[in-house]
């Protein structure tokens, strides 16, 4: 069993009369890369700010490396934070931005110089040491912000939506960069995101949050494949979610008898888990009609209407094309269904 880095015990955070986070307990191992995932307003940023000490929790305890830091001021916590908008110091050069934390520790000049340059090199920013933040691109600013937080060797690094301000190509690069830096430094990282792809691609463990509470927690594959609630399934892209009542699926338009047995309260399928065919068969027993179809590169996205109401379905472009208004048959295979009770 590895050592615990950060532990939250029954944390409660409120803004005036509104309780943003009612009762949160969570424990993070040393060297772990954890994602706090959820839609806006789910309390993920609030939680992160409380960990950093920028917000005072109304109840509960925050433990870092076994020490209670609940009431410790933010500037003594030894926690780094990479802000969503980077929050670089506009009046200082890249070098001085990174050196800032070391200067606060009043280290000898030679050591500051050496560690600052090493920090800049870690994110390949050495040759931009003399530039001001305004003279750097978004990706460079992001890397600079990362170096500034890392150079002081914090016990924990927090990242607020680290990839959201970057374009698609830079996002991939930065993702690899973050993983590499994490491997090289072995630092514990918590990052906040609303993007499931970002969370799944980067984290060792994902905490899915909803209205200030943990909805589900687990490794990316588990969160992706086995959502354990209606909310989790919906957030993870299970676009076909139906209520189950005495083995009948219930949709907005009507009911369908399930071809297999299940006792769960809900069943859900991803659009690519459904079967689409021209003729009725055991694997495609339900009649429907193509309402709309759109081309999406490697696959086509169909919206079907049938006895349940609307069903979303993806099929490879190698399969035959079904034009709108065509009668078709679709199947809801048991092995692609996820079941949950809440």
């Amino acid at each position, binding site marked *: 069993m590895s050592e615990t880095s950060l532990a939250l015990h029954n944390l409660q955070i409120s803004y005036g009369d509104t309780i943003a986070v009612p009762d949160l307990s969570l424990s993070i191992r040393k060297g772990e890369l954890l994602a706090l995932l959820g839609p806006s307003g789910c309390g993920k940023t609030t939680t992160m700010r409380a960990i950093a000490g920028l917000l005072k929790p109304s109840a509960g305890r925050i433990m870092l490396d076994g020490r209670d830091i609940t009431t410790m001021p*933010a500037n003594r916590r030894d926690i780094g934070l990479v802000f969503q908008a980077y929050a670089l*110091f506009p009046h200082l050069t890249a070098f001085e931005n990174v050196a800032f934390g070391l200067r606060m520790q009043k280290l000898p000049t030679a050591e500051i110089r050496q560690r600052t340059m090493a920090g800049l090199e870690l994110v390949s920013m050495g040759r931009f040491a003399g530039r001001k933040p305004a003279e750097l691109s978004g990706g460079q600013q992001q890397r600079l912000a990362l170096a500034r937080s890392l150079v002081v060797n914090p016990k924990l690094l927090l990242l607020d939506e680290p990839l959201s301000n970057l374009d698609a190509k830079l996002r991939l690069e930065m993702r690899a960069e973050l993983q590499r830096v994490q491997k090289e430094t072995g630092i514990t990282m918590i990052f906040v995101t609303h993007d499931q792809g970002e969370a799944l691609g980067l984290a060792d463990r994902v905490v899915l949050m909803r209205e200030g509470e943990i909805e589900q927690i687990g490794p990316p594959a588990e969160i992706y494949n086995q959502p354990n609630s209606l909310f989790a399934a919906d957030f993870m892209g299970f676009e076909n979610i139906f209520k189950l009542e005495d083995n009948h699926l219930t949709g907005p338009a009507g009911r369908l008898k399930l071809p297999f047995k299940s006792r769960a309260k809900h069943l859900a399928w991803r659009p690519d888990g459904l079967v689409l065919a021209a003729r009725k068969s055991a694997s495609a027993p339900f009649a429907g009609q193509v309402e709309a179809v759109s081309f999406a590169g490697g696959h086509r996205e169909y919206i079907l209407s049938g006895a349940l109401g609307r069903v979303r379905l993806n099929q490879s472009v190698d399969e035959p094309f079904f034009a709108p208004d065509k009668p078709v048959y679709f199947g809801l295979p048991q092995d692609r269904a996820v079941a949950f009770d809440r």
Partner: protein
Amino acid sequence: MPRLYLQWMIILSSLLFLIGPFFIIIAASLSNGESLAFPPDGLSFRWYGKIFEVESFRQSFGLSMFLAVFGTIVALIFGVPAAYALNRYALPGAETVRTMVAAPVIVPGIIVGLALLRYLVVPVGFSVSLSLFLAHTALVLPYAVRVVSSSLQNLPSDIEEAATLLGCSHVGVFFRIVLPNIRAGILAAFILGFVTSFNQVPVSLFLSGPGVRTLPIDMLAYMEITYDPSVAALSSLLAFLSILIVFIAEKLLGFSKYV
């Protein structure tokens, strides 16, 4: 096209209306005659020389400079922290404070001057000089708070949080991060405050005493006795000085975006 002509006519006549008197004063200041007149009577620079011979001008210029420089500095010493507090903390009644800070801009100077005379100088026995200093500081304060506020609004607060998390204290954040980033705003506030204080008439009118007169008041007094073109020469000189200051400020720090 005729509509465009009309628009230009309106623009030009407005400009003429605004700047016209200024040109008349300059023309009058270049007169060779003995009294203030337009059109000028001959051409000479002799009235510009005359200004420096008038002893009271020298004294009142010194007082005006002192009030403008130190009054504005004191206003900034109070105004910068006030602007910071109003911007960064959810203070109860912040809106009320903001309105009150703007009051001296809205309330006519005559009333401010009268009030200070009636309630500070007469009953409390504050000296005229001290009251004058307090009045100028108070008049400049709203500009200081407003200009510095707009500068602070452009500085995201997460920058301060970033410094805090790197181990910086509250005071350290203010001096190392906030102050360097609002330097241009503070300079702009200083210039605006300086010009406001230097050109102030109504309040200073009430707070004048023997030997204690600001330059504009002194010029008024001088004109009542001596109606020669030296006042026009002095006015022209001051106007050019103001234009020069604002021009340099604009070139150096884009002054107009703060005002």
